């Protein structure tokens, strides 16, 4: 963000020269970023409805290659939002079933499926990619993939959608990026001898370079209540849903709506963070399967963050974006720093 955003600075000749160079540089920079986007290889782990949205967005944007990694098969729940897998592919491998429609989105992108289980992949596997994006993984799996990505200097994202709520997480390690900033400059025309002094304001775009430091996924788990902003309901919900997944190896099904198992996990977090009844309405809400419009929203955010990361353009979300389906608020939490 611009620091002196309300200031109108007079543009001196020296500055004009300086900006000129930066502007010219910007031209080169933008070309460099395009090339980076076109060269990017992305791994998407977990081709559920959310994964399908992420895939659509980055394939449309035109990266070099996208690999779908998923050992699971298409389920009835996928029919709620997984538009890349045809309805009749029920029971077939989800990654493979998604390739033809994904490829139709952009013939220039190399789209592949890998039906292996992520747990069978060695750490070196991740070094083949510029970005790894993991969905529907357990905490253990995310920690391990995140660690392996850090080792091989690969940008890492994780995200999930449970019913109507969702999140994106980013660990870009040390991330350099460029940002265009508009500054208003005053231009004075004084030597006319006219009684009315004329002033002009013009906007000048300056490219700034920034560095942002990220933390791994493990650092954002179970943070203290005092380090969380006031309305962090979705963060608590994410912990509850993760703990459930960790314990049962899967997410609660629509048929298990209002199950005691989920309530038990919720109670642990409610007690731990002393939440009283603050998140009860969310625990009772639609948390089952993945609802298409929410996959579109959170998948849209994730897609944009991946594009920003590989092109090194624009301020990345550091580090947790949460979507609250009750308030429709989308918020960025900076946790674990």
């Amino acid at each position: 963000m611009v620091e002196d955003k309300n200031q109108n600075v007079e543009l001196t000749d020296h500055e004009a020269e300086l900006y000129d160079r930066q502007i010219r540089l910007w031209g080169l920079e933008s070309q460099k970023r395009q090339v980076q986007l076109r060269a990017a290889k992305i791994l998407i782990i977990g081709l559920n409805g959310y994964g399908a949205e992420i895939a659509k967005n980055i394939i449309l944007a035109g990266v070099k290659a996208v690999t779908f990694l998923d050992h699971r098969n298409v389920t009835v729940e996928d029919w709620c939002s997984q538009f890349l897998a045809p309805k009749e592919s029920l029971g077939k491998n989800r990654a493979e079933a998604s390739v033809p429609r994904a490829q139709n989105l952009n013939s220039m992108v190399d789209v592949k499926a890998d039906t292996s289980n992520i747990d069978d992949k060695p750490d070196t596997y991740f070094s083949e990619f510029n970005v790894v994006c993991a969905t529907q993984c357990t905490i253990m799996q995310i920690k391990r993939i995140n660690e392996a990505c850090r080792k091989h200097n690969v940008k890492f994202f994780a995200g999930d959608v449970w019913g109507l709520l969702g999140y994106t997480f980013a660990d870009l390690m040390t991330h350099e990026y460029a940002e265009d900033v508009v500054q208003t400059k005053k231009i004075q025309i004084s030597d006319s001898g006219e009684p009315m002094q004329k002033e002009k304001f013009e906007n000048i775009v300056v490219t700034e370079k920034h560095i942002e430091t990220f933390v791994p996924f493990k650092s954002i788990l179970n943070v203290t209540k005092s380090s969380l902003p006031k309305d962090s309901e979705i963060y608590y919900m994410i912990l509850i849903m993760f703990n459930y997944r960790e314990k049962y190896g899967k997410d609660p099904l629509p048929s298990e709506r209002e199950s005691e198992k989920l309530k038990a996990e919720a109670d642990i977090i409610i007690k731990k963070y002393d939440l009283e009844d603050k998140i009860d309405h969310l625990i009772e809400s639609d948390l089952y399967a993945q609802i298409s419009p929410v996959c579109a929203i959170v998948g849209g955010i994730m897609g944009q963050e991946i594009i920003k990361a590989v092109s090194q353009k624009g301020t990345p979300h550091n580090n947790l974006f949460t979507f609250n389906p009750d308030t429709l608020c989308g918020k960025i939490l900076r946790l674990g720093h």
Partner: protein
Amino acid sequence: MAANINGVFTENLRNAILQSKVLIVGAGGIGCEILKNLVMTGFVNIEIIDLDTIDVSNLNRQFLFQKKHVGKSKADVARETALTFNPDAKIVHYHDSITTSDYGVSFFKKFTLVMNALDNRAARNHVNRMCLAADVPLIESGTAGYEGQVELIKKGLSQCYECTPKAAQKTFPGCTIRNTPSEPIHCIVWAKHLFNQLFGEEDPDQDVSPDTADPEAADSAGQGALNSESNEKGNVDRTSTRGWAQSCNYDSEKLFTKLFHDDIKYLLSMDNLWKKRRPPIPLSWKELPDGVPGCSKEVNEPGLKDQQRWSISKCGTVFAESVKSLSNNLKALQEKSPNNHLVWDKDDQSSMDFVAACANIRAYIFAMAGNIIPAIATTNAIVAGLVVLHAFRILENNLKACKSVYLRSKMNHRNQLLVPEKNVNPPNPKCYVCAPTPQAVLAIDTSKTTIKELDEVVLKNRLNMIAPDVMIDGTGNVVISSEEGETEDNNNKFLEELGIKDGTILKVDDFHQNYSLTVTIVYRERSSLKGDSPDFVILAKEQDLKPKEEDLVKPSTSNGQVEISDDNVMIVETETSSDVAKKRKIEASEENLSKKRKLEINDVDDDISIIENDINNDMDKNTEEKNDDCLIVHDDNKSIVATSQ
């Protein structure tokens, strides 16, 4: 499909989804995304309407379409593709304009709710009125670059689309466009003027050559620029741009050299302009800054075109190609009739390429970094998601929960990226559309304006009526009738001749839109200098008109600069820049206290646009819309818009 699986939704919502009947207006970027969300969710009865056919440039974000569909109806192909997602959906498509009389109030009444996914204000205004008339909830949405918004429009409960003044199409002083562009939009306006000069309808107000009558340059009288070459209007005397281009047979190198080298050199000779500004740098056709490796823009690479920024040498190539193609088209047309000319069309690839290339080159010459980039696919996806979540709330009969939501390009000070309003915005009681008895004041030169101008320019073009009837209150004289032939004789008469003068009250009625408006006429002299001030002004109340009359000294190019004023907003076009600056500052500070954040998405024009975060705070925003095809984005806040002199 979510609504077919037990336990995904509450029974209440599930049944409402299955029983609803919904309409999507527009099958473009947002429309495709909405349709996908609806069929996956399990909506059964869906109707979708769009007039457009699929263009190659749509493929990078309107993801229901593929290369093989180019030229086909968007609504039709969107339906076909969506049915492959959910074969059980019942989708009706219309390849048609929503504004035709086939889609009257009874058509709209069929639906549980209507979702707008449109790209222009005229159609939005129309659907707004139809939904108000049919009393059907409307979900309005729009995107511009990385920003977007979703809002509910429900009669009596919330603001309608026309409750808040939308900035009229901005005009810029000629010398800014011709001599000292400082923002990308100036370059786009220039490029579109150039299109008309070369291929379209020639308009002397759209001159693109250096303006030697620029008062700023005139301060340096005696300088090289002001020589006998210029006439008193400031235009460098020579044959028309069109004539010159024809004489060299639209040779792209010669054209390029004149526009981007010789004219720029000429501007440089007007030294006073560049004392504080960064002088432009003429470009030489033979030495254009090099291209981006591996980034060719080919028709068969839809994905690559999106988010691609052309290098200047690429712009040069595109310029040459589009000039060739457009000049051939023009020639072919003129063989039929010498008076024929091309008409700007955003869906015509060559026209769009030409304007984009020229605007980019000029922006480069004047060192503007706001490059032209296309609409953003992810923004459409996010906004369409929000639209369908609003639809859920309407179906649950929880309309009060349908607060407007804004998608921001960056998080605000509360770390929010998706920002909901606290409440549903209540209707503006003075709205000239949704108020119980809509009223407006029209300030116009009754002695110089014809009935035809009133009909075409004021009522249809500006007030977006389809087929207005106009009657003088009191006498009952019908001066304009929507029935063909009934009032044709009036067309060329001045308003005065039919008794319309200061204080006259007109009853205006659009039967199709089920919309009646009472118009009070105020006499306002039209300036004798063409283009010096708007030809008419429309306001919510008369008082708003008074204080600004003195300031009508600014050049502006088109007529009909209209603002519907509410208490906080004023006519921008007719003020001096310092007034604007002052006013905006006052407004910003006052509004921060009294009004919540507001992001307005307005069209600058249907095809090309800019986005600017207005004013010096992150609460108020003005985003100008809109175009499906290309945009210029200023990501950051800008304090004051300068209108030169």
